[in-house]
C-alpha cells in the first residue's frame, strides 16, 4: 500500500504518475463501457455515466466547501457561535469598504473588456500571417510566467526613484518620463490612478488567454463564409465587424465570462504590489487578509459570499445566452 502513497525516487514517481493515469483511464473506460449497451438503457443513465465522476468531485471539492463558507459567514471568527448578519455588517461598515467594492467593480469591468479587445484585435491581425507563431508566443508569454515573476517584472516598470543627481531610475516608465523631461511619478501611490496601473498587470496576463481562445475560434470560421463576404466586397474593418465578431460571438462570451470570474478572485497582484494600501484593495484581497492573516473566519467567509453575489449578474447573462443558443438550435 505504501508504494502507492509515498514515492521518493524519480523512477518511482513516474511509475506512480503513469499508474494514476492508467487507473483513471480504466475506471472511466469501465463506466463508459457499462453505459454503452445501446437502445435499452434510458438516457439519464447514460448522462449519469458521463457526469457522475465530475459531479462527485465537484460536490466534494467545491460545493461542500462553498456551502460551508456560506454557513461560516453567519458564525463568529472561529465558526463556533451563530452571529447572524454581524459579519456582513462588519464587512460593509469596514473602513473604506466602499472603495474596496468600487475597485472590485472597476477591475471586473475593465480587465475582461480590455483583455478581450486586445486579444481579439491581436488574434485577427496576426491570423495567417507569416509571423503568426512568433507573434502569438510573445503575447502568450505573460500567461506562462508565474505570479512571483510577474510581480517583479512590473516592479521594474513602475518603480519610482526621485530625479536627482546620483540616483538612477530603475523603473522603465519613470525613465521614459524623465527622458522626455517630465518628473517621475509614484504610479502605485496616487489613487485612483494606481488601481488602473495594477489592472494593467492583469490585462497583460489575461490578453494571452483571450488571444489563444479567440484565435482558435477565428480559425473555425469556415473559409466559405469569408470568401462569400469577400465577394460581397467586405474587407478589413468591415470583415472584422460583420463576419469575424458575429461568428465568434459564443467564444467572446466565454472569454469575457472566464476572465471576469478570474478577475473577481485575483488578489496576488494587489497583495504583492501594494499590499492593498493606498486605496487599491479589492474584495478578494480583503477576503484573503481576513481569512489567513487576521484569521477571522466569519468575516473572511462573508467576504467570499460577497464575491459569490458579485458573480450573479455574470451567471444570469450566461443563462440568457444559453437559452438563446438553444432556441437557435
Amino acid at each position: 500500500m505504501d508504494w502507492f502513497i509515498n514515492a521518493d525516487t524519480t523512477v518511482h514517481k513516474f511509475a506512480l504518475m503513469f499508474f494514476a493515469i492508467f487507473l483513471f483511464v480504466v475506471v472511466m473506460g469501465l463506466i463508459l463501457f457499462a453505459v454503452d449497451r445501446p437502445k435499452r438503457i434510458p438516457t439519464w443513465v447514460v448522462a449519469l455515466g458521463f457526469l457522475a465522476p465530475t459531479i462527485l468531485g465537484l460536490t466534494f471539492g467545491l460545493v461542500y466547501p462553498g456551502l460551508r463558507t456560506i454557513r461560516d459567514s453567519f458564525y463568529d471568527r472561529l465558526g463556533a457561535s451563530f452571529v447572524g448578519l454581524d459579519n456582513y455588517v462588519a464587512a460593509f461598515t469596514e473602513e473604506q469598504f466602499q472603495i474596496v467594492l468600487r475597485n472590485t467593480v472597476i477591475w471586473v469591468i475593465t480587465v475582461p473588456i480590455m483583455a478581450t479587445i486586445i486579444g481579439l484585435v491581436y488574434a485577427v491581425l496576426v491570423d495567417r500571417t507569416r509571423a503568426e507563431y512568433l507573434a502569438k508566443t510573445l503575447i502568450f508569454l505573460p500567461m506562462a510566467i508565474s505570479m512571483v515573476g510577474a510581480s517583479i517584472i512590473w516592479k521594474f516598470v513602475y518603480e519610482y526613484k526621485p530625479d536627482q543627481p546620483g540616483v538612477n531610475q530603475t523603473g522603465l516608465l519613470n525613465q521614459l518620463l524623465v527622458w522626455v523631461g517630465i518628473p517621475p511619478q509614484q504610479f502605485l501611490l496616487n489613487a485612483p490612478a494606481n488601481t488602473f496601473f495594477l489592472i494593467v498587470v492583469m490585462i497583460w496576463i489575461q490578453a494571452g488567454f483571450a488571444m489563444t481562445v479567440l484565435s482558435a475560434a477565428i480559425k473555425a470560421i469556415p473559409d466559405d463564409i469569408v470568401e462569400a463576404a469577400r465577394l460581397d466586397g467586405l474587407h478589413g474593418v468591415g470583415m472584422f465587424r460583420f463576419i469575424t465578431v458575429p461568428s465568434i460571438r459564443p467564444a467572446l462570451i466565454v472569454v469575457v465570462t472566464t476572465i471576469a470570474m478570474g478577475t473577481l478572485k485575483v488578489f496576488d497582484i494587489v497583495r504583492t504590489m501594494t499590499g492593498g494600501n493606498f486605496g487599491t484593495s479589492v474584495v478578494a484581497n480583503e477576503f484573503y487578509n481576513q481569512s489567513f492573516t487576521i484569521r477571522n473566519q466569519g468575516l473572511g467567509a462573508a467576504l467570499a459570499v460577497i464575491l459569490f453575489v458579485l458573480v450573479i449578474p455574470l451567471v444570469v447573462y450566461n443563462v440568457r445566452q444559453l437559452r438563446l443558443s438553444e432556441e437557435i438550435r
Partner: protein
Amino acid sequence: MTIPTGKLVDVPPEDSVGVGNRRLTRVEKRAIAAKGKLSSPWASGIAILIAILWTVPTFGLFITSFRPQSEIQSSGWWTILANPGLTLDNYEEVLFGSSTNFATYFVNSIVVTLPAVVIPISLALLAAYAFAWIDFKGRNILFVAVFALQVIPIQVTLIPLLTSYVQWGLSGSFWTIWLSHSIFALPLAIFLLHNFMKEIPASLVEAARVDGAGHVKIFFRVLLPLLAPAIASFAIFQFLWVWNDLLVALTFAGGSTNVAPLTVRIAELSGTRGSSWYLLSAGAFISIIVPLVVFLALQRYFVRGLLAGSVKG
C-alpha cells in the same frame, strides 16, 4: 469598405458550411487571408506595437536576471549597454543554492502536472458532451450550477479538503494534489469545452446517430477528433495553472521535498525576509522553459483551425 447586406450577417455559420462545394486550396486561403488583413500598414503597426508593449517588461526581467544584485538596485536594466557586467550568478544560486537537487523539484513538477492536466480534461470532455448532446432533465440547471462554481475561491476549500485527505491517509502524497487540481479545473474546463462542443454542427451528430452509433461512439468517433484544437488550448492553460500553482502544492503536499514542485522552491528563493528577491528573476525564467515548450508543441493544433476541412456532411 462596403456596407454588407444584413442577410449575410444573420446567417448562422453552421448553415452556410455546405454552401461551398469545393475545398479551398492552401494558396487560395492565403490569398483570401492576405487581401484584407495585414496588408494595411496600420494593422501591422498596431500588431507590432502590442507585441512590443507585451514583451518589453518580460525582456527587462530577462536582462535583469543576468545582472548582479548591486546593479539591479542602482540602475535600470536598459543601461545594460552602458555598464555591461552580465553574470550567471543568479542562475547558479537558483539551480545549485539549495541542499535539495533542483532536478528533484523539476521532476516533482512534471509528476504533479501531467495527471492534473489529463484527468480534468478527460472528465470535462465527457461532462461537456453530456451537457451539449445528451438530452436529460435538468441539464441546463446543472450546467449553470457547474459553471457558477468557478467563482468559489480555492482558499475556502483548503481546510475541508485537507481534513478529508488526512482522514484518508493521503496527506502529503501526490494523490492529494492530482485530485485537488482536477476538481478545481473542472468548472472552467467544462464551460470552455461545452462552448466548443456546441459549435459542432448538429447534422454531424445526427448523421452518426442515424447510423446507429450510441453516445459513447459518437463522443469518441465524431466529436473527439474535431475538438483537438479546443483540447489543445485548454490543455495548455491547465498546464500553466498547475505548473505555476503554489497554493495547492503548499497546502496539500507540505514542503516535503518528495512532492514539492518547482514553485515551492522558487517562492522561497527570496529568503526569509525577502532580501534576495532578485533571485526570483532567474527563477522565473527557469520555470518558464517547460510551459514554453508545451505551448510551442501544442501550437500547431490551434493553428490548424477548429473544423478545417472535416465538415462535409
